[in-house]
């Protein structure tokens, strides 16, 4: 890997992955998986964001050096203005409205006993873990309140995480195309993990991936999402869990739902919004 001139400013291990691909990222030459990882990293790392901006400016200068051709035909403008005023064209969107629109399209969570199928399955699944006794005790479902989301019904015990028996990762909603969020629990002793979450798009395929300390990407499992968008699934790590520094969940288009690093409970994060000229999805 070619060392970067700004390496001294980047003390985060994640920077190495992003910096190794920063030029290709600016050119749009990364595949969707790598692009998603770099995009997510840039939300958090100002140093890498500055580096990316310098290469993006090179690309912008390429745009501006294009020779100028003849003007467009006169009818193009009229066609455009007619389309603007047509009823089926959406008005200008703000930067978050697409999320609101997508959320409105989702079917409401089903009520009744079907919501508790994941919870009913959780107990026998949890026993399979070596530290399952403590894990199972940490899970409790709030059957009296049917309005609460799934992650309010299942509360992971923070003391487990602090005791080192189980590592917890919180799934951050960082992908604009999926509202999925929740937790991933990892048992170091038997190499098993468990995904608990909600608001995943059930019509899309979601995969769980990890990146190990060698920068290798490995798929852990394909998630099975309940029609309500809930997920509760166990999986086996292909290598020792401690070797993996990052865990990701992707949808079928490669869009990323990043699973953050180790936390002792719910991870509250407000990543600064990265302005992009155009989403390419």
């Amino acid at each position: 890997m070619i060392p970067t001139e700004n390496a001294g400013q980047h003390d985060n291990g994640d920077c190495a992955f992003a910096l190794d691909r920063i030029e290709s990222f600016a050119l749009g030459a990364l595949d969707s998986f790598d692009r998603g990882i770099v995009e997510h990293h840039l939300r958090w790392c100002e140093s890498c964001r500055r580096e990316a901006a310098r290469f993006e400016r090179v690309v912008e200068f390429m745009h501006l050096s294009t020779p100028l051709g003849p003007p467009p035909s006169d009818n193009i403008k009229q066609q455009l203005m007619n389309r603007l005023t047509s009823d089926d064209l959406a008005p200008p969107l703000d930067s978050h409205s697409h999320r609101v629109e997508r959320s409105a399209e989702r079917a409401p969570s089903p009520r009744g006993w079907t919501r508790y199928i994941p919870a009913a399955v959780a107990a026998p699944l949890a026993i399979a873990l070596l530290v399952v006794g403590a894990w199972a005790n940490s899970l409790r479902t709030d059957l009296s309140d049917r309005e609460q989301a799934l992650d309010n019904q299942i509360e992971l015990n923070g003391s487990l995480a602090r005791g080192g028996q189980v590592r917890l990762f919180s799934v951050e909603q960082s992908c604009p195309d999926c509202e999925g969020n929740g937790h991933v629990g990892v048992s170091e002793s038997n190499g098993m993990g468990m995904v608990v979450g909600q608001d995943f798009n059930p019509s899309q395929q979601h995969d769980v991936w990890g990146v190990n300390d060698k920068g290798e990407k490995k798929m852990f499992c394909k998630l099975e999402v309940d029609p309500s968008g809930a997920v509760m699934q166990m999986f086996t790590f292909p290598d020792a869990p401690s070797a993996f520094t990052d865990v990701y969940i992707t949808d079928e288009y490669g869009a990323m739902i990043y699973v953050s690093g180790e936390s002792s409970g719910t991870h509250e994060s407000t990543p600064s919004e990265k302005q992009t000229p155009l989403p390419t999805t």
Partner: protein
Amino acid sequence: MASYISRGRFQGVDAATPRVFGTMSMTRPESSVDMLELDDATLAGRVADGSTIALEVLYDRYSRVVLSFATRILGDRQSGEELLQEVFLRTWQQARNYSAERGSFVTWLLSITHNMSIDEIRKRRRRPQRADSADPVLMLTNVTDDSPSVEEFAELGDLRLTMIRAIQTLPMAQRSAIELAYYRGLTQREIAEELGQPLGTIKTRMRLGMRKLREYLETHEMELA
């Protein structure tokens, strides 16, 4: 074209004229004649508020620029004109995402154009090729083209000449890797397959080429960050 330049809506890099964004007249202009006096950032804000007149003014200013760029990537004028409409429709829908702090409106607009053009090229690759589809011969530099460039239209001085010289400093292998990504939207992996080269080789060429371009532009005092 001269009438657009004289209205001064784009300050460029003229040190004698401070760059001004977001200026508003005391009375909110309602007519297209008033809109003509507004700078790009203000017009973009009006578009975000739903002003079709503001979008029309921006179209009049930059449609030729967008069409030239789109045609160059897509290879034919008809496709370019179709994409021109789509670019301005996207601008209509996402004007609120533009911020003058990130750069000029024209570069934002051309970034949209580039992204949409590349998306179209990628769609075409997934479809059976039409008999009349042309594989455009695309070069980042064209020293025989005497027509004014986008940057000259947008009053950015000698950018094009500097960019041409910067590209010419690259070894052909590095230039090819960058061009295939920039004009044809190929990923590194796809470029490696097309050229029959190892992926690592393409990654290195792209990296070194972009670094050389950046170094050249920065050496010639081009503001890159």
